[in-house]
């Protein structure tokens, strides 16, 4: 059998980068599916595109600028109303740093 395009170890590493957790079963299935997809994508290797510039934007345009004038932004309470937890006019998050004292 040919070498896999992606190993189980790589799958777990990528999951960590993407802030996802996978059960053992999910990781095995993910490895098999990504392996098949990446195997198919090897078809791109038929093409030598080293001299072809990449297309990051299909329709070329300049970055537009607006006048540097302050504008009203959204209402804070409306935005905080959508937060899972808020406190004192801000988003409440789990403790990040232990504060001594």
């Amino acid at each position, binding site marked *: 059998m040919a070498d896999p395009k*992606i190993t189980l170890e*790589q*799958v777990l590493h*990528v*999951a960590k*980068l*993407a*802030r*996802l*957790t*996978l059960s053992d079963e999910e990781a095995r299935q*993910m490895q098999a*599916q*990504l392996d*098949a*997809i990446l195997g*198919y*994508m090897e*078809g*791109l290797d038929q*093409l030598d*595109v080293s001299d*072809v*510039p*990449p*297309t*990051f*934007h*299909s*329709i070329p*345009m300049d*970055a*537009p600028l*607006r006048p540097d004038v302050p504008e009203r932004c*959204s*209402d804070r309470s*409306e*935005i905080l*109303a*959508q*937060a*899972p*937890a808020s406190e004192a006019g801000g*988003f409440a*998050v*789990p*403790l*990040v740093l232990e504060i001594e004292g």
Partner: protein
Amino acid sequence: MSDFPWQSAFEIRQQVAAGSVSALEVTRAYLSRAEELNPMLSCFLTIDYEGALASAAQVDRMRGGGEELGPLAGVPIAVKDNLCTRGVRTTCASKILGEYIPPYDAHVVEAVRASGAVILGKTNLDEFAMGSSNENSAFANVRNPWALDRAPGGSSGGSASATAAGLVPLALGSDTGGSVRQPAAFCGITAIKPTYGRVSRYGLVAFASSLDQVGPMARSVREASRLLEVLAGHDRRDATSADRETGAYLAACDRQVKGLRIGVVRDLIDGLQDGDVRAGTEAALSALEKKGAVLVDVSVPHAKHAVSVYYLIATAEASSNLARFDGIRYGLRVPGEDLAETYTRSRAQGFGPEVRRRIMLGTYALSAGYYDAFYLKAQRVRTLIRRDYDTAFERCDVVCTPTTPTPAFALGEKTGDPLEMYLADIFTLPPSLAGVPAVSTPCGLSAAGLPIGLQLVAPPFEEELLCTVAQSVEDECGLLDSHPSALG
């Protein structure tokens, strides 16, 4: 109301403006049809009774006060649930946004409201618009009104099913790699993916930012063209919104195709496995030729790489865009021991399998050591696909292919094999990658009675050409007179 529920947006607007029916009466009739059929079709995730009746009452007040009515006054419309609607739940068919209520309207939602259209509700989709069958919705499987055991297509399957089933005459969808065109083909309606930049993406929940476009969906080419007029235009809140003249799309429907050069991707059409799709495509081409269009052979030689290129670029962009869903500022939070665990638990429980798979693929393609081999390479091949179209458009005005390799496949048929599902997008992906506009419009029924879609592709910002040619196809082989059989 004559011909309910199949009357056009033009007829509804005309009757409302003339006062032969009130916008409230129209809205109540469509709301009750949606309430009756939605349990069977699952095309709406939210039916906004209150908002719809308030919008309709506003139209009636304006008429009573002698004010000028908008181009879609009183016309019911459905909005895909990845477009933000102020005060109305916007879920993206994901558990991670299950209870999200946006504090603002998307640009296209503002535009639709300003036109006088009445938003009936929010339509089902593949989670975060990732899918080709609508089977990735976290909430319900949409059904195809032509055959309830068939996929409605995706990701705008709810909008397509609702329009085809006469729950609304018009709908908004979004298209990243075919997500308005493919469900339009499967459900026998018309949908336009505008040129990248033609319609503002402000308030469209981002999937792949270099590909996403909002598009109009309707049963007829004229209605889709009219809706495109309402949506198109510059909006400075989207930095990629094109600041250029929009077209007269409705008027373009009345132009003749005589003398227009239709580029036929011959090798691709001859290679079709499905005899019905091949026959439908040939019939549409013959009809165009009979009306005086000139058929010329063209090729898009790198289209065969589009699945690889698209599923690298779109997933890379998605992995970055979906990083914002971390359980902190909005959406689902599943608390963990610390911040990092809160992120991972929220994301693992909030995202469904296909979204996780795409985040994984995109993260891999962007990760150290693989960026050049996958992501950058895909962007280079994307250039070759763009150049293919540049070359083709030197010889023709529009490029013609089928929209899909087969009519609607069965629900469950492809869910076990993600790659198999991706390969079904082969015809809709190349125009998305090139940023060029494309339309899908019906060109007949298969032997089994399923709609077949024809795709037409035009040069950047030449949507008028699409309207002209699609209208001729509709006149000769459209499905306006046949309604979905599964509705009983």
